[in-house]
Structures are given as C-alpha cells and as structure tokens.
C-alpha cells in the first residue's frame, strides 16, 4: 500500500527544489530568453516531477507531498506549453496595417449585420421625426438639439459660441474619446447577452442619428449638417459599428449556429478577433474625438462647409481603403493572409 515515503522524499527533494527554483526565476522575468541547456533541464525535471506525482498518487496516501508536487507540476506544465505565446513580439505597424483590416474582413458578416441594424434604426428615426415632429424630444436626448435647427445654425455661424469652446476644446475631446469608447466597449460586452444588448445599442444609435438628420433636413440645413457631422462621424460611426461587430462575433460564438465546436472552443476561437476589433474601434474613436473637438465644432465663416465636407469625404475614402484593401496578400503569393469568412 505505502511506498517508503521518507526515502522517496529525501531522494527526490533536491530535484523538486531545483525545479521550483527554475520556475521562480521564470516567474520573476517571464520574457527572459530561455537558454537551451536550461530548457532541457527544465523539461527533464518536469518529467521527473510528473512521474513522482503519478507514483505518489498511486501508492501513497500523504496529501501534503501530493499537493506540493501538483502545484509544482502545474506551474511547470504552464511554463512548457505556453512558451510560444510568451515570446511573440508586439509589432504595432503590422497589427495596424495587416491584422486589424484582415480581421475586419474575416468577420465582415457581423459588420454588415451591425450596419444594416444601424441603417434600419436611422430610417426609423427619420420617419418618426418626419411623421411626428413631436417625437424629437423622445428620440434625441440631447438638450442642445431640442431647439429649432435654424436658430442653432444662426447662433453657430455668428461665432458667439467659439470663445467658450476655445477654453474647453481639450477637455471636450477627452470626454468624447472616453465616452464613445465606453459605449463601444459596452456594445461589444453586451454580445454576451446573445447579441440582444448590442442590437439595442446599435439600433438606438441609428434612431438618434436618423432623427437628427431628418430634423435638420426638414429645416433646410443639410449643408450645415454635413459640415458638422461628416468630419468626425465618418470615423466615429464606423468605430461604434466595428465595436458592435465584435459584440456580434461574440454572440455568434455563444449561439454556435452551424458550428461543431464546443462553446468553450468557439469562444476561445473568437476572442482574439473580438479584441482586435475592439482595440481598432478604440483607436478610431481617439481620432474621432480629436476631430470632433478641434474641427467639427467650427463652422462657416471660420471654416467653410465645403472644406469640412471634403475633409470628411477624404477620411471616409481612406478608412474604406484601409479596411477593404490593407493587408491583402498579392495574388499568387504563398502567404494567404485572409481566410474565407
């Protein structure tokens, strides 16, 4: 029934202590390159400790030694099998030019779904305001948009608000970046509600935008609207949709329709893409926040609408090109970056 525990522990203790010391050194500096000799020693000691654990579990009944060895083997197991992930270097330019756009295209079905929802919400908001102008107060929870668009445009163009804005451009930009990023991350996180929460956020944002657009169009302020919204909106709205795309990827992994993988494996497979999309969205929102604070709030005659609209269109073209073309591998290349969706 029992092995000679004392002799067993006395004989094996130096090897366990050496393994423990190596693992502690790795834990202190996980990014230190592992010399070949040390790697071999680690492997040898790990295998020995594993064998000791199996032997102890089979023949002895002493819990302390077993727990100690289990802890040791668990740490060594993680060290061995996780080595590849640890040494991967961060390359921001590759991530930006290749990883992110490729991920976007690979998961473009979720983006199209988010876009369709957003457009449906916009149409709903436009129709609601067109058919019932009183709905504006319900659909647009922003105090500064409740008034007559003509009065606001006249006030903005008179330049009376610029002095006040000039003193809070920085904090306004900061607020916008943080707020929009929080909304986008929430849209992603709500993918865990099987996508229902994400759906609500995307649709409601579409409704709000549609209501604003129709309100200004009915007031004959279409040019002002384009000059006001395009510079930051062409980045901000896609960013929110990309964050939501991450939420829908998460929801699809939860639902697992047509997938044979287990839930755990589906989520594991989706996680890197979701994170890539979220980080990309956050990056876009930083740009959008800066543009909204520093450019969008300035109107004619300070900044001609044509210039603002042209700036917005250039941004939209650049974003579209980046998402659609960047990181594509040349035809015939052996390295295929894009996987089929």
């Amino acid at each position, binding site marked *: *029934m029992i092995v*000679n*525990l004392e002799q067993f522990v006395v004989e094996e203790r130096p090897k366990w202590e050496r393994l423990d010391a190596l693992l502690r050194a790795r834990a202190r500096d996980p990014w230190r390159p592992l010399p070949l000799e040390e790697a071999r020693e680690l492997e040898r000691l790990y295998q020995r400790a594993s064998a000791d654990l199996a032997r102890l579990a089979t023949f002895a009944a*002493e819990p302390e030694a077993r727990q100690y060895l289990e802890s040791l083997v668990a740490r060594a197991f993680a060290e061995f099998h996780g080595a590849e992930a640890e040494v991967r270097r961060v390359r921001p330019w590759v991530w930006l030019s290749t990883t992110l756009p490729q991920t976007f295209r690979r998961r473009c079905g979720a983006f199209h779904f988010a876009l369709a929802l957003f457009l449906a919400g916009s149409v709903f908001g436009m129709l609601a305001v067109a058919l019932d102008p009183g709905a504006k107060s319900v659909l647009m929870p922003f105090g500064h948009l409740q008034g007559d668009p003509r009065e606001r445009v006249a006030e903005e163009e008179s330049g009376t608000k610029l002095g006040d804005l000039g003193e809070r451009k*920085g904090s306004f930009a900061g607020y916008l970046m*943080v707020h929009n990023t929080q909304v986008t991350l929430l849209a992603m996180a709500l993918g865990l509600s099987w996508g229902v929460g994400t759906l609500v956020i995307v649709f409601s944002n579409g409704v709000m935008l549609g209501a604003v657009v129709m309100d200004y169009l009915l007031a004959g302020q279409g040019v002002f609207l384009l000059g006001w919204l395009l510079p930051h909106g062409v980045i901000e709205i896609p960013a929110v949709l990309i964050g939501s795309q991450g939420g829908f990827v998460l929801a699809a992994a939860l639902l697992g329709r047509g997938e044979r993988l287990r839930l755990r494996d589906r989520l*594991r497979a989706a996680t890197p893409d979701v994170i*890539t999309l979220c980080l990309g969205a956050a990056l876009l929102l930083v740009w959008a926040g800066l543009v909204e604070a520093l450019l969008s709030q300035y109107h004619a005659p300070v900044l001609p609408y044509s210039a603002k609209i042209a700036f917005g269109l250039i941004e939209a073209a650049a974003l579209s090109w980046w998402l659609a073309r960047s990181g594509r591998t040349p035809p015939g290349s052996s390295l295929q970056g894009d996987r089929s969706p």
Partner: protein
Amino acid sequence: MSTSRLATVRLRTPEGVAFSFRLASPALRLAALAIDFAVISASWSVISILFSLLGILSQDVARGASIVGYFLFSQGYRIGLEWRWRGQTIGKRLLQLRVIDERGLPLSFAQVVMRNLLRFIDALPAAYAVGGLAALLSTRAQRLGDLAAGTLVIWEPTEPMPDLAALRGEKYNSLRRHPGVVARLRQAIAPAEARVAWQALARRDQLEAESRVALFAELAAHFRSLTPMPDELLDGLSDEQFVRNVVDVLYLTRS
C-alpha cells in the same frame, strides 16, 4: 477536467499527468478587487499631480489629458499587470490569487484583455452584481468575463515541502518487534485511514487538549480492532504513542 464540491478543478494533461487547482472563492476575489480599487485610487492621486503640471501650458489640455489618462490607467492597470505578472494584480498577488487559462496554460494577451473589458457587463447594474451572480452559479466560479475568455481565478497558497519531522521520532517502537502484527496492519489499514492518522499527528499541536485525547483514543481503538495484539505491545503505551507507532510502521521503513 472535473470539479468537486471543494471548489477544485482537476486537469489531466495529454501526457496523462493529473493535477488540481483550488478555485478562488467569490469573497477572496471581492477582497482582491477592493485592494486593486484602493491601489488605483491611491496611485491616481499621485499620477494626477503630474497631469496637473500640464496646467502650466493649458488648464484645458490638463483636464482633457486627465480624463483620458484616468480611463487608460483604470482600464490598463489590470490588463497590464495581469499580462506582465502572469495573471496577477497587486490585490491578487497579496491574496495569492492568479488568473489562469482554463486548460492550465498561461494567459494569452487576448484573454487578459477580454476578461477585463467584459467587466463592463460584469459590473452591471452595480457592485459587480452580474459578475458575482455568475460566479456563484458557475461550477468553476467564473464571472462572465472569465467564461468568455476561458479563464479561471485560482487560489495558490504556497505549498510547503512535505515535512517528515512529525514522524521522525527516535523513540522505541514496540510494534517493530512484532512483524506479523505490522504486516496485518499494513494489509488492513486503508489509505484514507492512514492519511487521517498522519494528519492527526502532523496537526496535533493545533488541536485542543480534550479533542486531541478523544481523537487519538478513537484512532487507537480502531487500529487495535483490526488485528489481535499481544498485551506487552500495548502496556504503558498512550493512545497517541500507539497511533504514532502505527503510522511509523506504515510510512517508514527502517533498517
């Protein structure tokens, strides 16, 4: 992988080696969260002084940088430390908790980011109600962020080297003069019974006097009932010493 009522997760590697992790209780995790919150608050009160220096250039820029800085710091604190310290923040390190991949592997960066970004939903509607409820209902104490990222939070107290000093007495063991009795005891005593006796000896100093006497009396009575023993073997021997002698012949071989 299997779980038990004692909140452990047992893993079996492809090589056939099995080991277990002790899951961190929701209470311990809450305590670590509170410590991290305190660390973030205290650190930010220092860092914000640096941001306020930007006010020399522009108060507005200082305010804007401070808003973004706090967001990045509060979100990046856990992500950065869990990535750098392999699943630990300051709170987790103090309470000996660690986030691990549910397969026993180290965390990937995507897992660290995912479990932390999903705090947005775990923290809803307030005080981590959703996450706490999910952890209580989950067999592996996972909040939603852990479920999605495929991570576990484990408790890893420092495991001491097995100490045999509790048995290594130099006293005369009368049982060793009766090899037949020793052989029958080794055959009759189950591993679980041997473990109980070992633990009773290892922890004798932690027991109250009355409890200790009662425990060793019960153990000694049980061992005596397993096989007939000559009277001279038991004469003048306390229950605790008898149990010590039994464990000695079960675990240790002496020349």
